[in-house]
């Protein structure tokens, strides 16, 4: 039981450590930068920017540490950076093994394809949980270190609610991963798709006639800045993300079942 998830999870440990260290270092830089910029009237600086741009970067309230973190760390790293990262990594999971013919060995095991896929996908939880479970405390410590405070429950929520979002991004990668034979193609297609969805949500948000398009994007259902500032979120959004990630997993299983290796 779960031998594959354990093995694949161990293979992800190093990547998870590097990812967490990188994200932590970037968060440290941003928190430090906040102290440098203190006293600058950000609202003034950004008043002239078009609303679409403010929307795109999630700029709401840069004069507070919560708002600054939301815009600079969560919107950039969690929503865009990690979204693309997990799409990319998931894109390589199956296609990479098919490309190196490792999949032949894996499928000679007494394990069904769908189970193998679920366990390989579950291993993606290792970096996903590491970057949140360790990234959160790192951010909090940095904030405390510069003499600021951020509500712990808001920070916790921002991390927790990012998981369903990241699962959807990984799900997009997984679908491409089982559909093609080459890792590079699956990875690029997955990253491209998640990036386009991110852009679509940002750009179309302002146009009333086509605003339904934004609901296609997973970024629509995870908004870290309001969570950090007010602790406000819609449970239905997370539910939608979880259902979507499950749907993508089931779709990947169906595609994987049918394909030739």
């Amino acid at each position: 039981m779960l031998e594959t998830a354990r093995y694949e999870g161990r293979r992800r440990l190093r990547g998870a450590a590097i990812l967490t260290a990188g994200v932590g270092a970037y968060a440290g830089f941003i928190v430090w930068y906040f102290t440098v910029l203190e006293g600058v009237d950000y609202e003034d600086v950004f008043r002239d920017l078009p609303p679409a741009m403010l929307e795109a970067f999630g700029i709401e309230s840069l004069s507070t540490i919560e708002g600054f973190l939301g815009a600079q760390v969560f919107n950039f790293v969690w929503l865009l950076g990690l979204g693309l990262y997990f799409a990319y990594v998931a894109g390589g999971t199956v296609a990479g093994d098919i490309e190196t013919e490792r999949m032949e060995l894996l499928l000679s095991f007494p394990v069904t394809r769908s189970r193998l896929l679920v366990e390989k996908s579950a291993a993606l939880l290792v970096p996903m949980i590491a970057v949140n479970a360790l990234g959160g405390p790192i951010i909090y410590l940095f904030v405390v270190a510069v003499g600021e405070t951020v509500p712990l429950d808001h920070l916790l929520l921002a991390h927790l609610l990012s998981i369903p979002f990241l699962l959807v991004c990984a799900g997009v990668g997984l679908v491409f991963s089982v559909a093609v034979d080459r890792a590079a193609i699956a990875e690029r297609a997955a990253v491209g798709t998640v990036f386009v969805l991110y852009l679509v949500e940002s750009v179309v948000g302002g146009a009333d006639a086509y605003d339904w398009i934004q609901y296609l994007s997973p970024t629509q259902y995870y908004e870290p800045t309001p969570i950090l500032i007010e602790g406000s979120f819609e449970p239905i959004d997370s539910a939608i993300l979880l259902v979507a990630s499950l749907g993508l997993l089931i779709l990947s299983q169906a595609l994987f079942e049918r394909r030739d290796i």
Partner: protein
Amino acid sequence: MSDETDQPLVVEGLTKEFGRVVANDDVSFAVDGGEVFGFLGPNGAGKSTTIRLLLGLLKPTSGTARVLGADIHDEAALTEAKRRIGYLPAHLGFDEEATGEAVLDYHGEMKGDRRREELLELFTPPIERPVREYSTGNKRMLGLVQAFMHDPDLVIMDEPTGGLDPLKQEAFNEFVREERDRGTTVFFSSHVLSEVRRVCDRVGILRAGSLVELENVEALLHRSGKHVRVHASDAAVAAIADLDGVVDPERFTEGVQFIYAGDVNALLRELATHDVRDVEIGEPPIEDVFAHYYGSEEAADESEGNGGGAEARNESDAAEEGSNA
């Protein structure tokens, strides 16, 4: 269930098309329990396709196969059967970053590893080192260990000796014979006849996706004729080379050599009528047997013109009649 033990591998009309390419065309054969079956054919004949079909990696276009009693269309049954199947793929895509030991640990967790230590004494990959540092031979040995470590009833191997040095190859041959004696059924593909000849009880020959021959090794050698080398005058050589059953006569300064697939007595009678300086009649080099099936262009044209396998089979039946007469 008797079917399972008597014939661990039963292939029935297995066909696989990739677009317009027919990789396996109506392939049928059965492998008996406790025998070593060689699946022979040149590169590109479709051997790996058959093997991938048997393991459920590919879905057949039509036909089916039963592996240890499990229908390859039935994923649940085939998955259960895989507990007792060992597989050595042609290309070993191990996790490059892991050590050989970590790879074997994982394989052991998935399917069992009661024979691991014993096998590591015979095949000696440097298991403490990461796989990316392995030579082809070391990877092959790691592959052999994982294929046999759970003491499977049926082992399927795709070109198992590629990359092994001659000593390890001999160890492998010996090992396969011992496994057979323990009751393990071994099915392996190869494009090297000499290897097959040393260890196999029976062989199936695959050509352009069709099974053209299914025989025990001795019969294969028998029906493939004799290698004859005659030293004689030019006139005598011309008469001898015209004999029925002479294949690929090759003249040299003092005589001629050829493969003789006809009646041996007829050959001897013909030889007796000439002034022969020297004659050698022996078992043909294994490569010539191979050439007999694959090398001759007329045979290839003929079989393509007449719909593949059936024609080639008739041709070999004719050879059999000749050599049995």
